[in-house]
C-alpha cells in the first residue's frame, strides 16, 4: 500500500480486464479457428448477392438435378435451383435467426435473472419456477405447438426460440446478481439513492456481461440448431426461401440421398461447421473471461 502515484499502465479506459481476456482468447487455437471459420461464414452470408452466380430461388427446369459443375458449383436441385446459392442464402436466414433468437433469449434472461436475484423473495420464486417450467418442456415440441397455432414464419421462430431458451441466461445472471446483492458497493449505491433499474444497469449488467456473452454465444449455436430442426420439420423457414433445414427436408428421400449427395451434403456440412465454430468460440470466450473454469488448462 502506498499513497504515491502508481505507474500508469497503457491501454484505453476500461480496457484492462477486457484486453487480458482478449489475449487469452487469441491464444486459444480452437477458439481462434472457430472465430475465423465463423467470420468466413458471416462474410459469405453478408456478401451473398455478390458471390453467387444464380438467384437462389430461380427455377430452371431444364437444368434440374445436375451434379456439380463449373456453372453450378454444387449442382442443382429437383427444380433446377443452384444449390450453392441456396446454401449461402440459407446461411443468412440461419445466422439471422440464430443471432436474433439468442439476443432475445439473453436479454429476456438477463432482465428476469437480475430481477429475480436482486429482489429475491416472491419475485425470485415466480421467475425461477417459471424458468423451471419452461426448461421442463422439450423446446422442439413447444416451438412446434407455437408454430402450429400461429403459423410458421421466421418471426415466430425467433420469438419461440427466445421464449424457450431464456432460462439458461436467467440462471447465470441470477447467480451473478445474488453474489453481488450483499456486496457493500451495491448497498452504497442504494444509500446514494439508486433504484433497482439503476443498480441493474450500473452494477449487475457489467458484472454479468462476461458469463452472459458466453451463454449468448452458445445460445446462438442452440438457436441455429433449433431453426434447422424446425425448418426440416416444415415449421420454420417456409419454401421457397432457402434454409439449411428445409434443404435437408427437400432431400429426404432414399433415391436422392443415394444418387444426389450434393443436395444434402452442403447444407448438412454448413450446419455442422457453423454450430461447431460457434461452440468453439463460446468455449474460448468462457475460458477467456473465467480462466478458473477453463477445461484442460494449457500454458
Amino acid at each position, binding site marked *: *500500500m*502506498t499513497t504515491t*502515484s502508481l505507474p500508469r499502465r497503457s491501454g484505453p*479506459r*476500461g480496457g484492462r480486464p477486457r484486453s487480458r481476456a482478449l489475449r487469452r482468447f487469441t491464444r486459444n487455437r480452437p477458439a481462434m479457428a472457430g472465430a475465423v471459420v465463423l467470420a468466413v461464414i458471416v462474410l459469405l452470408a453478408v456478401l451473398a448477392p455478390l458471390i453467387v452466380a444464380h438467384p437462389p430461388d430461380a427455377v430452371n427446369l431444364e437444368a434440374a438435378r445436375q451434379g456439380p459443375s463449373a456453372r453450378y458449383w454444387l449442382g442443382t436441385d429437383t427444380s433446377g435451383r443452384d444449390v450453392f446459392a441456396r446454401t449461402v442464402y440459407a446461411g443468412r436466414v440461419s445466422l439471422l435467426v440464430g443471432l436474433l433468437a439468442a439476443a432475445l433469449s439473453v436479454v429476456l434472461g438477463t432482465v428476469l435473472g437480475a430481477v429475480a436475484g436482486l429482489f429475491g423473495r416472491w419475485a425470485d420464486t415466480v421467475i425461477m419456477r417459471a424458468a423451471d417450467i419452461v426448461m421442463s418442456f422439450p423446446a422442439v415440441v413447444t416451438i412446434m405447438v407455437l408454430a402450429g397455432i400461429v403459423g410458421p414464419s421466421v418471426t415466430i421462430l425467433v420469438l419461440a426460440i427466445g421464449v424457450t431458451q431464456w432460462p439458461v441466461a436467467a440462471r447465470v445472471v441470477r447467480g451473478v446478481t445474488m453474489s453481488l446483492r450483499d456486496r*457493500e458497493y451495491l448497498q452504497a449505491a442504494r444509500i*446514494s*439513492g439508486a433504484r433497482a433499474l439503476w443498480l441493474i444497469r450500473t452494477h449487475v449488467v457489467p*458484472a454479468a456481461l462476461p458469463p452472459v456473452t458466453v451463454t449468448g454465444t452458445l445460445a446462438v449455436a442452440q438457436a441455429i440448431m433449433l431453426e434447422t430442426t424446425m425448418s426440416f420439420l416444415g415449421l420454420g423457414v417456409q419454401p421457397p426461401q432457402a434454409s439449411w433445414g428445409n434443404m435437408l427436408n427437400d432431400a429426404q428421400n432414399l433415391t436422392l440421398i443415394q444418387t444426389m449427395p450434393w443436395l444434402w451434403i452442403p447444407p448438412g456440412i454448413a450446419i455442422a461447421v457453423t454450430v461447431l465454430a460457434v461452440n468453439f468460440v463460446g468455449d474460448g470466450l468462457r475460458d477467456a473471461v473465467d480462466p478458473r473454469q477453463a477445461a484442460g488448462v494449457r500454458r
Partner: protein
Amino acid sequence: MTGPLLRVRDLSVEFAGEEGTVRAVDGVGFDVAPGEVLGLVGESGSGKSVTAMSVLGLIRPPGRIAGGRVEFRGTDLRTLPEREMRRIRGAEIAMVFQDPMTALNPVLTIGAQIAEAVRLHDRKVSARAARARAADLLRAVGVPDPGQRVRQYPHEFSGGMRQRAMVAMAIANGPALIIADEPTTALDVTVQAQVLALLSTAQRETGAATVLITHDLGVVAEMADRVVVMYAGRVMEHADVRTIFDRPRHPYTRGLLESLPRLDGDAAELPAIPGTPPGMADPPDGCPFHPRCPMARDRCRTERPPLRDVAAGHASACHFHEELGGRGAAAAGEESHA
C-alpha cells in the same frame, strides 16, 4: 433552521430469524443538530449500524422497524414513499463506509463511481460534466493528480486514498447529514488520522452534521461534539463529549474508558470489561449490562432502567447513576457493590 436536523425517537428494529425475533435496536432515541458531530459508540452488535440503516430507510427483510420515529428536518422518514426517500438518500443523507475496498465496485473506475453519485441526483448533468466533477471532488478530498486518478480502478488506490474517494462520493451532493460507519477501522493506523482530519475538514466546509459510528473512543474524543453510548441495542448514556470522558454516569461507559490505554498510566495490564455482550436472541432481563456490571445488584436483574436525565444534557440508563458522580465516586460505587 430551528430544532434538530435528525430526531430519532423510540426506534426499535427487529430481525425475524429461525430462533425467533431478535430485537437489534430497542427504543433508541437521539437528536442531531445541524452541523453537529454525534458519536455513536458501542461494541460490535450493539445496534449502531442497524440504527444508521434505519435512518436511511434501508432495513430489509427479514429485518423491520418495529416502532419509533425517524424525523429528518421535521418529517418522519418512515412515512415517506420510497420515491421521496431515494431523493433524500445520497443527496441529503450520505454515508461513508467502514471498508472502502468492498464499498467500491472493483470493476468500475473511481471516477465512474463518483460520477454515478453525482448523476443519481442530477440527471441533467452530462456524463462528461459528471466526470469532471468527479475529478474536482477527488482534488477536494486531497487525492493528488485527480485527472489521472479518476481513470483508475479501486485496486490501484491505497486504503487511505480509497477512503478519500468514498468521502468524495459522500459529499458529492452537499448532504446535510453524513453517516460515517467506522470510517477508519479498516485503515492503517498511520492513515486513520489523515482520514479523520479529512472528515473534519469536509464536515466543517460543507456544514454537514455527522453521525460518527465507532467503537473507538479515541476517534470520538477527536471528532464528536456529543456521544451516544449503545449497548445491546439500547442507549446506555448520552452526553456531550467532555462529560462522557470526565464524568461518565454509567458503569458501561466507565468500563469502556478504563479499558483505554493511557499514556500517563503505569498499569501492566489494561482493565477489560469481563464477559461478552449478550446474545441478542436471548437478552438478559432487567438491565442488559447487569451480567457484566461490577455494580449489579438484584434490582438490575429484574428491573430495566430507563434512560433518565441525570444533569442538563446528560442522560444515563443506570439505576445507580448517583453512585457514579465522577471518577472518584465511581470507585466508591464499586466498593458498595462489594
